[in-house]
């Protein structure tokens, strides 16, 4: 938990252009002054969870939380990538508002098979950045970073030397999108309306009309009449429901 707090606001090397917006703190707009410290802030995830666990599962989760896998450099890189993939500048917030890269940090530990691909992908990205712009990914300009992302964001690109980057970016995109849409911000962005007790009574009329669908009368007869759902079910001997 201590580690998370220190990660929450990280000191970056100087950036040439504007920095990632933060959730609560003021945004440091970069100037040409290379001595100014810049910050990435993101919303942390809860430090404890209570969601119906057996003892052995609680223990396994605690071990995962205290495990350290990513180095600071990697976490900052992840943060920047998540922010590029789903920026905060949106009424429903973005990846950093929604608790990425903490989510990525946890899920990669949880799903061991992602550990090497993410580490290796970051290293690949850094080497590409150095090759093209003489500095690693987090230390080049925003424009240069986006330029690199443009190279690897599309699976239809066939260039052999870019394939590792394309795989890596696809993975980061998947983790970012899933990490976002499984938070309250993401659910609000999607507009999901379920997970609450209700009485299902079929597809709304206007939606049926839009899709040129309707319920067959014969089928409806087999369906529940919700005005009578509280009445205890009784049948006649021919198996007909009579209540």
């Amino acid at each position, binding site marked *: 938990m201590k580690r998370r707090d220190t990660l929450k606001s990280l000191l970056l090397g100087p950036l040439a252009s504007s920095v990632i917006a933060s959730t609560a703190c003021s945004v440091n707009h970069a100037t040409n002054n290379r001595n100014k410290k810049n910050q990435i802030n993101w919303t942390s995830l809860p430090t404890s969870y209570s969601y*119906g666990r057996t003892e052995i*599962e609680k223990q396994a989760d605690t071990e995962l939380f205290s495990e350290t896998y990513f180095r600071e450099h990697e976490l900052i890189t992840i943060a920047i990538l998540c922010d590029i993939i789903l920026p905060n500048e949106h009424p429903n917030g973005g990846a950093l508002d929604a608790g990425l890269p903490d989510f990525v940090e946890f899920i990669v530990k949880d799903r061991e098979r992602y550990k090497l691909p993410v580490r290796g992908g970051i290293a690949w990205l850094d080497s590409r950045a150095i090759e093209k712009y003489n500095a690693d990914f987090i230390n080049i300009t925003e424009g240069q970073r986006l330029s690199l992302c443009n190279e690897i964001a599309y699976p239809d690109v066939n260039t052999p030397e870019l394939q590792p980057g394309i795989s890596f970016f696809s993975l980061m995109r*998947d983790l970012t999108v899933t990490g976002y849409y499984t*938070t309250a911000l993401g659910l609000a962005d999607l507009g999901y309306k379920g997970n609450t007790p209700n009485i299902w009574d079929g597809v709304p009329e206007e939606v049926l009309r839009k899709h040129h669908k309707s319920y067959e009368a014969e089928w409806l007869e*087999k369906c529940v009449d919700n005005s009578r759902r509280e009445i205890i079910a009784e049948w006649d001997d021919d198996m007909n429901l009579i209540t």
Partner: protein
Amino acid sequence: MAEEQYDVIIVGSGAGGGMATYQLANAGLKVALIEAGDYYDPAADEQRTQLRYPWESPRRGASTRRRPFGDYNSCIGGWDLDGEPYTQKGDTDFMWWRGRMLGGRTNHWGRIALRFGPLDFRRKDIDGLGDNWPIGYEDIKPYYDKVDKLVGVFGSNEGLPNDPDGFFLPAPKPRLHELYFIEGARKSGVPVIPARKSMLTKRLNNERGICFYCGQCSRACGIHADFSSSTALVYPALNGGQVDLFTNSMVREVTTNSEGLATGVSYINKKDLKEYEMKGRIVVLAASACSSARILLNSKSSQHENGLGNSSDHVGRYLHDSTGASRAAFLPDLMDRDIYNEDGVGGMHVYTPWWLDNATLDFPRGYHLEIGGGMGMPSYGFGFAANQYNEFLGERVGGYGNQLRDDVRKFYGARLSIACRGESVPQYTNRCEIDPTMVDEWGIPVLRFDYKWTDYEILQARHMQDSMEDLLQASGGIVLGDKPKADQEYGLTKPGEIIHEVGTTRMGDNPTTSVTNQFGQLNDVNNVFVADAGTFVSQADKNPTWTIMALSWRTSDYIIEQMKQQNL
């Protein structure tokens, strides 16, 4: 504890064990229910996962080794359990599921409640394969009727020849993607009817709630509106009868006396790791098909050298699981959907029962279709390949930035999927037996599986793929991925993957080719019974649970009647 003797010891608290507990306790018998897993109550808040949002789990509901169907799935158990290995003979690749909690698999099962039909009890008469059951539909129908009314199932009476009518609660209306499937099925001449599932869409009794359509049945239901053995059978029995519940207790074997009759069980208490003996006049094994077979095979004595009840050498044999295959499609007409609460009950509201005549096909047994899709709650994996369907629209896949939000929204709920579940042919050589070299963490010898699908199942899977492709396209879908071919066995699931194992202690009239009689009573030992799916002679293209409960009730009635007649 040492001197107490129970009337009945029941091993396993799932569908069969729970039903036997309920019936025998109601008859006034003194019952011990032994469960290998822990106590579990879905209504208890500290164990509850129902109605939790994805962010309440650090992995957003993703699966874990201990919960292979998802972090919120109520089944504690899996194919791969700590300390409980099993082995495979040759290139067998059998997946063996164990549930380890009160209520067993009924906590997370799909609630699909299908009666076997008249044809399902006499398959050998029809296609010459396998064997007929020693009973017919008429023998079990009264019990199906009773289970419908006790446990509750929604559906509709359709007058179908091999998918019998029942005492159904009314069905929930189809969802939008299901309406698309209905249209596609009609075009293809394939029947589709309301699903038959064990959720209470209408009040059944004053003890259990009415479904509030959260779609999370697999998380187990806090208001007990769907069936799990613990909530609907075990708790009432605990409250109403003389039932002692032993959890975290792993049965090693059935103990016998010098006459070869059972005297009780010996079990390991997982908390203090000591072994205990429990005395009972009757033992009912309902630990699931392979687990009960394992207990019998491990219960060797001088009178039962090959394992208890195994004079026929049939314990563990004729093991078979359902076949399965699935496919999905993108439905362009479902892009940019209006969003409303479409959770419904867990899983499909409509399904397709087997509709063809196998005499005209190149495989002998049938399968049914389960329909998937809809605007479900996001959980880990939601948004993966968020805009892959762009390829069908001539747009670019991938990218980054706020445009991804539009893509996610555009494609939300625009998918239709079909899962087939079919009947396999029981084979004498498909079996589980004891591995002579390996024990589990309590020193109990483990099972070794020897299992091969035959061409009957592989050709059935080929047909499944053709059916699914036709229906998905007829429903307006663009099928996804590549259609599995022969080198992938047409996408046929692995044995054990569907978790419908049956047949390991099959019933019969001939004691040289069966383990139990029609009442689940061991041919060799009259005070030992099996009340799980081990007694099935064949499994039908229908999920086992309803039949397990009907047979367990029938077995319980028989036990009660035999005790009254002092035969037991």
